[in-house]
């Protein structure tokens, strides 16, 4: 009975979050489509022609999985950080906090919202990619798994950011100063074998490298890292962030006085 109550609450939150993504589709779905189109035009068509091949693939084909992941990462993060922080600022998060919903249900609801937006965006960017290059996906199930798990990791990261954020600046700092550099340095546009030894080793500390390369392996069948290591790293981050988010909400950090 209690399980059923939690399930109904969680489904209500997922429905609410999905409706939000679709209601403001001009803000949530279209912009990543436009941004990624520009990446394909500039880095793929214009500059890519001069670069030639990367790791045995046409440059456009090589960067496509990374660009899909880049949009999944920024959008799943942005979805949850924006939605949760707005709920905090407008105080309608209290609708959930006063209800019998458990912290696990609340986290799962927001997590699902972020993943759903990540999937929508991945689909849109993949469709756009087809206008510029071919996507012969080698491991489709793995590709979906990587997209879902990566969207999950960054939805949870966005949730943590929103939990601690006290003002709008706080939700802009992490995406600008942490997420963007890690994404650009995560092997979206290059193989790390091009880097000097030292920077190759440094790159292994960047979790986004594993996500981008896991996606690249799913699509191209080739990547800089071992796929099992990639999946394990994503899974480890997912579990760690999930437990942290649930713990913080249970403690009332950022949401209770």
């Amino acid at each position, binding site marked *: 009975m209690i399980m059923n*109550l939690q399930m*109904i609450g969680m489904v*209500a939150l997922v*429905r609410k979050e999905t409706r939000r993504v679709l209601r403001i589709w001009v803000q949530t779905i279209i912009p990543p489509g436009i941004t990624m189109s520009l990446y394909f035009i500039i880095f793929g068509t214009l500059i890519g022609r001069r670069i030639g091949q990367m790791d045995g693939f046409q440059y456009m084909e090589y960067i496509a999985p990374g660009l899909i992941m880049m949009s999944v990462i920024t959008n799943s993060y942005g979805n949850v950080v924006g939605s949760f922080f707005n*709920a905090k600022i407008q105080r309608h998060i*209290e*609708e959930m906090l*006063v209800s*019998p919903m458990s912290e696990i249900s609340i986290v799962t609801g927001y997590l699902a919202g972020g993943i759903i937006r990540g999937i929508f965006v991945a689909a849109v960017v993949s469709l756009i990619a087809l206008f510029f290059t071919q996507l012969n996906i080698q491991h489709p199930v793995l590709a979906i798994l990587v997209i879902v798990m990566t969207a999950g990791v960054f939805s949870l990261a966005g949730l943590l950011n929103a939990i601690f954020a006290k003002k709008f600046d706080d939700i802009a700092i992490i995406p600008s100063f942490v997420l963007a550099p890690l994404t650009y340095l995560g092997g979206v546009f290059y193989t790390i074998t091009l880097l000097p030894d030292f920077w190759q080793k440094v790159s292994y500390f960047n979790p986004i490298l594993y996500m981008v390369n896991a996606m690249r392996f799913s699509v191209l069948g080739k990547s800089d890292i071992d796929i099992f290591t990639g999946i394990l790293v994503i899974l480890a981050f997912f579990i760690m962030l999930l437990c942290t988010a649930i713990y913080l909400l249970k403690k009332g950090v950022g949401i209770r*006085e």
Partner: protein
Amino acid sequence: MNALTIQNLTKTYANGVEALKSINFNVAEGDFFALLGPNGAGKTTVIGIVTSLVNKTSGRIEVFEHNIEKNLSAAKSCIGVVPQEINLNLFDGIFNILVNQAGFYGVPRKESLKRAEHYLRQMELWDKRKEMARSLSGGMKRRLMIARALVSEPRLLLLDEPTAGVDIETRRAMWNFLRKINRNGTTIILTTHYLEEAEQLCNQLAIIDDGEIVENDSMYNVLTKLKLEVFVLNLDQSIDAVPEIEDYFIEITNPKEIEVHVKQAQTLNPVFEKLASLGIGVLSMRNKTNRLEELFIELTRAESNIGVTIE
């Protein structure tokens, strides 16, 4: 059974402010209970702790015998809350807000849709159901918050100044509605600055001042504690001199109106008898000030906070 049991509840905020100093009170099932106090007395903190929006420092709280530490989910299932501040998702549709809230309380979707319609109609907001919450007036937002709190059909309804900023007509309509749901079995705890509202609606009350309960009794008992009441009598003819009655202080405020000061043990009978013997009729009579307000000021010394001298 008690709808709410509060024992030795203490709250000290991170900045050191001691908002609640080991308070105790119970609210019986079916009561319409007023929790009164001046600004900053601790009323909202009590409601915040009961609804788990504020972490308590120490103490014990039970909602329909569910301890909020051991069985928070069951306790929260019994509670609906209308907060002091507007906390609606202003960019969400009005109907959706209610359906979501019902869902958060575990109400199946089909039933949620029915209840959302029912309570929007009750609050006369059905015609606005497709609009966003931000398009509503202040009074409508308050009504929407009440509908949102009721959609889970709680056994205990917490109303934190629900009629603040609401026009008189709407307030009276809300009073009637709240009386009705109370009669139907919902226990209500009301905080308000309109003491007339508390006197009209509530059968029990607690007054909290500076984090301590300074009064906790039935409304009837509390009102009988007033040491002095002043009645204004409108007369059917002008009088020139004050009618002399032993032990009564009477003054003429205008030619056809007198004020009679009545002490706790006195009745108004001698005054009426005296006026009748003088051939003067009493057209109407009222309390000069709200009785609960008098008592409230006496207990909390609220006027001294704003620099008005109390005699």
